[in-house]
């Protein structure tokens, strides 16, 4: 396999999704021996869970930059669009 399975948490969503697609393609091609396909499936499941977790964690958070006296960003505050 190209990537180390431990790196899933470091992957971006897109990388994980691409890796998952590749796993599925490999499995569907049927070229992988049965024993290996089980390991491949396990990895695919981890990738799928990682992708799903990323989707589940998505929530809107809207902030606005607060500038200090020198015009440098000093922090953020919730943005409500009513400024």
């Amino acid at each position, binding site marked *: 396999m190209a990537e180390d399975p431990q790196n899933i948490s470091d992957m971006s969503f897109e990388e994980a999704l691409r890796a998952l697609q590749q796993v599925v393609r490999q499995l569907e091609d049927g070229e992988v021996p049965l024993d290996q396909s089980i390991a491949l499936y396990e990895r695919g499941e981890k990738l799928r869970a990682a992708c799903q977790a990323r989707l589940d964690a998505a929530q809107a958070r809207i902030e606005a*930059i607060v500038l200090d006296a020198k015009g440098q960003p000093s922090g953020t505050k919730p943005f409500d669009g009513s400024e």
Partner: protein
Amino acid sequence: MSASYSDDADPSLLANSRPGDNSEPLSVSDLSRSLKRVVEDRFGFVRIRGELSGVKRAASGHLYCSLKDDKSVIDGVMWKSAAPRLAFRPEDGVEVIASGKVTTYAGRSKYQIVIERMELAGEGALLALLEKTKARLEAEGLFADARKKPLPFLPRTIGVVTSPTGAVIRDILHRLSDRFPSHVIVWPVVVQGETAKGQVSAAVRGFNALERGGAIARPDLLIVARGGGSIEDLWAFNEEEVVRAIAESEIPVISAVGHETDTTLADFAADHRAPTPTAAAERAVPVRAELAAGIADLGARQMRCATRPVALGRERLEACSQRLPRPDALLQAAAQALDDATERHRRALVDRVAIGRATLGEAAARLSPATLNWRLGQARERLEHVRLMPATLTTRHARATERLAANVAMLRSLDPDAPLGRGYAMVFDGQGALVRSAGDARAAGTLSLKFADGRVAASTGDAPPPPATPAPAPKPRRKSPPPPSGQGDLF
């Protein structure tokens, strides 16, 4: 100036004052001063329209240029104090309307306009300037495709540079939450007017300057947006400062300025140009529901893939095991053969015993005393037929004794030495051979005479007799004459 010079046709060598003419000649400076006063009084405020040429910004900060039309040209200068108020960057060939006063420059007998304000002469000029700026920046490579950065598939944080009020930010936030609820940081700016270009460019650079993992999340995607408006309203997004900030942004930028038909230089510099703020939001994030469905589909597919070989294997295994013969069937033939062999084995022993017994019986039947007796009888009978009588032997013995006695008598009579007793002698030569004639004796010379009691040497008259040899001891009568030929025929 009603003075007439017509009556003075011939110029004289020296200037001389005429009678009645008490005006002294003016000095150059006097005239210059006077001209300056006249010009500045008369042209203290003018607005002139002309095409810029020879634009030059001096190190001092003053801006020098010329304004011209098809026939005339006038120099112009914009002092450092006025130059910052320019709303555009003056370029050669751009038609402008300049406001200011005309002054003279006495030292060089020149006049020029000191420009207080300079504006583009209408929308055409604005567009012309835009084209010029675009061509310049394009030549610099700011808009090159090679500079375009790929947008992240799913940004973690989206920075939005726009006005905090109005429809634009609402549209963006609304579409983002529809598609994929995201972390958005708004950098509020004014998007129109003098300060817009500074604020927009500062916001773009400010987002880039945020540290990764800092207190404020650094966006991995920027949206620079503004609603629709006139070309002047959108002008900040054609400003070089803004265009450069966007082009230099390490964070990928989506621009969405004005309506679909408006294209600003910021759009050319951005990594992706969206026609509207809503479209920018659509480009920024994928639809979460679609992704979830896609992932669910991938999960289902790989599940199918993982279970299919197992199911397939199970089917094949079942098919194979059905074709396998049942174990008892497999053993039947062998069991039968075993049974058969066991039976035959058992019977074979019994049979063999029976055969042995029968053979024994048969043999035993033949082995009876009668048989032996019969054979004994026969032998006895044969024995009886043999006539071994003593008479047989005795008869033959008597006959043989008789014949022996006859032969002994015969033998005695034939003994060659017997006559010696009776006075005969036998003559031998030197070699021991019997001498049978007188001739032989004469030839032999030396003779040996054998008598019954011994030998005597003799010689013939022709030769002295040899010394007498001691007579050999008389031989035992071993040299008996051969037995009469008839002796073998004893029987």
